[in-house]
């Protein structure tokens, strides 16, 4: 599905990387443990997480992924938004909790992104 649809389904606000909104994404990974993302997530997936700090951006960047959804109304700092823009990463924030966010996307055909 298009990232713009992900935004609409999760009623999310886009904070950086609007240029990615027309890209198609089929896989997602939801977790707060960055080493698990680095170990198991595929690069063509979006990350849903309740963790909000610079290391989330570094993790996604190093794993060649490019989209992050912050759940549960957590807002990244202005510094993080600037860092995401510099690295051309899409970030959005939703009020839904991680479980609901994943459930909504799964219901609409998004697949899990493990590559074990």
């Amino acid at each position: 599905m298009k990232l713009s649809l992900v935004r609409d389904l999760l009623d999310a606000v886009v904070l950086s990387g609007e240029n990615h909104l027309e890209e198609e994404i089929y896989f997602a990974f939801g977790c707060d443990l960055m080493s698990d993302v680095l170990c198991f997530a595929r690069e063509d997936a979006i990350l849903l997480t309740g963790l909000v700090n610079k290391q989330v951006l570094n993790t996604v960047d190093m794993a060649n992924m490019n989209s992050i959804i912050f759940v549960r109304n957590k807002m990244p700092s202005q510094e993080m938004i600037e860092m995401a823009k510099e690295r051309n990463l899409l970030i959005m924030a939703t009020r839904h909790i991680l479980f609901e966010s994943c459930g909504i996307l799964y219901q609409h055909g998004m697949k899990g992104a493990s590559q074990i």
Partner: protein
Amino acid sequence: MRYKLILDVKRGDFDAAGEASRKIKDILQQLGVSSKVIRKVSIAGYEGEMNLAIHSLGGKIILEVGEEELSLTIKDIGPGIDNLDLAMTAGWSTADDKVRQMGFGAGMGLFNMNKHADNFLITSKIGAGTKIVMKFSLE
């Protein structure tokens, strides 16, 4: 040798952690290394950089790019690892709550570095430090 770079990583500097790995990724992109190899090097290097910031007293990351392979050396000045077999085991970690709250401390880093590097060698001595050498073929 086509390229060599030495970067310092400070102990406990969680704000700056990740900058060395980002720098390495930039350079590899400039050198025209394939994105598949860059991903492996970036993941392994970043796990190593986080370990330096979290567990070590400070250290260095050394990138050496040759014609057919590149190597990443991650070494620190202590405290060293007592039981390497245990440290390499997925899920084993001595990280505290503060580190866990930042999203690290799952005990997956060394396992993950070994998984992404084509060749992985770790040596460690209590009091002296830890040294990891990873090789990646440039295909």
